[in-house]
């Protein structure tokens, strides 16, 4: 009998506010240790937290985007535990009443099927600082620059049933927070990180005991860690053992999960409402103001792309996976055929980016250049083949499309007389092949076309060459 894997994800998205959640210190990454601190985020005696309204607005934006209940009254609580990079001895978080309640996220799976994943809640909290163990011998350094950075913890229902579904959900959420411009999504720097709750059960049975896997900072690690965990748990269960509820750490170097602490060793966080902060009250006008400025979201954009640009669901899905890519595509497709633009963006552009290991955000070829290039194909100034050459040029070395076309004399030959002259010359120079063609060897047309293209250095319009040669050969 098969095992069914049950997966729920907890995602910590660092909100991209200019300042921290409870003080005015900057959130910028990479500064001198402890330079972005003040009495509040250092937890000096008597210092008090004041909630950053921008962080709340970003939480509301996510709530609206996933169709969630927004709690008009939510509470900040203290999660108490001792750790050197947690200067107050407690983390301010939300516990019993989070700002964002139940919502849903629809994900597209590889087979084209859509799946609705439940979001249990999303709550605001502050990040801790960092402990640096490497740089000091026999001591640890504490950098509190990150302490107090706003986080939105987004908790899913245990609705995912495969590593692929978990990855699809995480990717969708990643795209969404970037669409909403509430998180920079940088997984390397930890601005978007994920814990996975994984358990196995017999289909239809009650949920099994879960393990929580921490430290998943890439889509691939999420997939690998769950795959590892499925095998580990299955082996235990099939040999008659029991899963221990515990927290496990994924070690990417060894591709395995290791036990961090069991449930018994887990902290009792002694949550209670933070008396330094009043309940967070959302009024309707604030919610409406944010609703009014919400950008077009991935699902809506995908549907629009399918309608407006006559794209397949797959193409529209790829092109709307990220807001930057979608915007790029729309610029390219501004006044050319949508399908042609899609082929160029998804094919040559994404291929080149992938090969160079560059994100679309840092794309060296502007959308305007690619738009012009595609337009030059559409208006028959250049052929598709020549266009690929020009694309390589603008992507790797820069330059302007028209300047390259003119500078290198790449303009397509569409002059019928000129092409006819070249065709005639080739037919005349190859009497045997011409005769064979007329005797029924249709395939030889390719030979003639190739010769004409070669003679024109690739600049002759292939459609015209085809038509003219056919006419000449049949006539003869």
């Amino acid at each position, binding site marked *: 009998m098969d095992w069914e894997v049950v997966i729920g994800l907890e995602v910590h998205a660092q909100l991209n506010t200019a300042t921290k959640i409870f003080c005015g210190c900057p959130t910028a990454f990479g500064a001198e240790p402890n330079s972005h601190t003040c009495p509040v985020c250092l937890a000096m005696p*008597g210092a*008090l937290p004041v909630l950053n309204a921008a962080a709340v607005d970003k939480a509301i934006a996510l709530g609206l985007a996933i169709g969630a209940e927004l709690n008009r009254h939510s509470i900040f609580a203290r999660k108490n535990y001792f750790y050197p990079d947690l200067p107050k001895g407690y983390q301010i978080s939300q516990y019993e009443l989070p700002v964002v309640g139940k919502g849903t996220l629809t994900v597209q799976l590889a087979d084209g099927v859509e799946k609705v994943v439940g979001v249990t809640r999303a709550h605001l909290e502050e990040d801790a600082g960092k402990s640096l163990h490497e740089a000091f011998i026999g001591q640890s350094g504490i950098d509190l620059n990150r302490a107090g950075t706003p986080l939105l913890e987004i908790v899913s229902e245990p609705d995912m049933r495969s590593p692929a579904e978990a990855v699809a959900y995480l990717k969708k959420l990643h795209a969404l927070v970037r669409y909403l411009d509430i998180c920079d999504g940088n997984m390397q720097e930890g601005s978007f990180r994920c814990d996975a709750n994984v358990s196995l059960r017999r289909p239809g049975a009650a949920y099994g005991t879960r393990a929580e896997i921490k430290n998943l900072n890439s889509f691939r690690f999420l997939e690998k860690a769950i795959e590892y965990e499925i095998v580990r748990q299955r082996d235990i269960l099939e040999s008659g053992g029991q899963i221990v509820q515990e927290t496990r750490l994924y070690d990417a170097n060894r591709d395995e999960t290791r036990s961090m602490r069991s449930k018994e060793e887990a902290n009792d966080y002694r949550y209670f409402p933070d008396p330094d902060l009043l309940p967070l009250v959302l009024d309707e006008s604030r919610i409406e103001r944010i609703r009014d400025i919400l950008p077009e979201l991935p699902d809506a954009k995908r549907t629009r792309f399918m309608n407006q640009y006559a794209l397949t669901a797959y193409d529209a899905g790829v092109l709307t996976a990220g807001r930057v890519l979608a915007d790029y595509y729309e610029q390219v497709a501004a006044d050319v055929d949508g399908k042609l633009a899609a082929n160029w963006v998804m094919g040559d552009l994404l291929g080149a980016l992938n090969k160079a290991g560059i994100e679309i955000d840092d794309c060296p070829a502007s959308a305007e250049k690619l738009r012009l290039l595609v337009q030059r194909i559409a208006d028959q100034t250049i052929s598709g083949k020549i266009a690929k050459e020009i694309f390589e040029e603008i992507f790797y070395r820069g330059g302007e499309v028209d300047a390259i076309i003119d500078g290198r004399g790449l303009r397509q030959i569409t002059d019928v007389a000129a092409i006819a002259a070249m065709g005639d010359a080739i037919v005349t120079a190859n009497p045997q092949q011409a005769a064979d063609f007329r005797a029924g060897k249709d395939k030889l047309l390719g030979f003639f076309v190739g010769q004409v293209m070669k003679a024109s250095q690739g600049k002759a319009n292939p459609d015209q060459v085809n038509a003219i040669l056919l006419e000449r050969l049949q006539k003869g």
Partner: protein
Amino acid sequence: MELHEFSLRELRQGLQERDFSSVELTTTLLKRISALNPALNAFVTVTESKALAAAAAADARRAAGEDGPLLGIPMAHKDIFCTAGVRTTCGSKMLEHFVAPYNATVVERLAAEGMVMLGKLNMDEFAMGSSNETSYFGPVRNPWHTDMVPGGSSGGSAAAVAAGLIPVATGTDTGGSIRQPAALCGITGIKPTYGRVSRYGMIAFASSLDQGGPMARNAEDCALMLNVMAAHDPRDSTSHPAAASDFLRGLDRPLQGLRVGVPEEFFGAGLDPEVAAAVQAGIAELARQGAAVQSIRLPNNPHAVSTYYVLAPAEASSNLARFDGVRYTHRAANPADLTDLYQQSRYEGFGAEVRRRILVGTYVLSAGYYDAYYRKAQQVRSLIREDFRRAFAEVDVIVGPTTPTPAFPLGAKNADPVAMYLADIYTIAVNLAGIPALSVPCGFTAAGLPVGMQLMGDYFADDLLLNVAHRYQQETQWHRARPSLQAGEA
């Protein structure tokens, strides 16, 4: 009358008329402190040179034509308010060497008015105590009888003001810590409505209960201080937008028609008969001035102490977690590992009463006990608020004793924490509700110890309480009585 007995109004007049300068006044009081403080132990830190510099600056401001009710007037802060460049100990070894790089809002506001800080005042450790005996820096003695406690936790503030070391001081009140020592030392002190006075830079004991306030020798001086101390502070989320007010306006309103409620629960078993008699006489004076006195009920008041001793330790256990030996606190020498660093630093840095409350607070918040203790206590807190809400539908002020007994001997209650906790039996409900209350001197026991009468008001009725206290003090002399103190007395 001597300079150290002047009220704020008299001090201002003297400064205005150039009878004395702020430097002269400051010098006089600094001398008095150095003569009397060894016996009282009211000051933890005396900032003589900073004080003289501040006094000179105030004199210069006055010479330049500036004037203000507090300009050039000496004062001192309870050592719970952070003062930039001057250590803030909170009465604890944990913060023995802590120097904040910032001022509490209250400190900043009073300094801006030109007040001259003479130093930092002794207190129960982290404001946890009712006798000022839990201070790491030793107990404070009651100026009326130095074998007696001054009350706590603002014991240093009360003793210093009563002894004429300073005309006014700041205090904080979480369960009675302004009113109880004010009563035991024969001075006037007000715990304002929660949210009136900024808590920024005031070291937290129990955040939902803590409130700073003035301690002085009369109600008018409290009003002058509160005029500056009460203000909305964007750095404190619990600070009320309408915190500021003019507390002098209406100070003289006659009491004719004032509805006074006397809670039955405040006159039951455990109340010292001499205290009861003095307070009854005080109530009679209010009636003589035209107040209509009626008996009322605060049925949930008997639950206040036990409710408080769940909620306050719960908040304290979390508030005091930041004192962990990692940054600015006492740190144990040679810890074996991180856990040892925490355990040893906190064991060494905190006194027994603080440790007791941290343990209680940790317990009541623990999984499995939260509902039975913390949540239940919050429910009772709502009932206590509701008691007051009902009472204030019928009366304008509630009057009763501030404390069940006058000052008790040092050491008398140290072996029995619950007996100590009951010293605050009449003051705690006010903090749980968040309403304002003040204590005024209303008599003496046969042994010569002061007795305090407590006035409680509805939310933001601080001005009414000061008005009633002021009118009372216009017709009585209790607040003018001064302990006789000789230098070196102990």
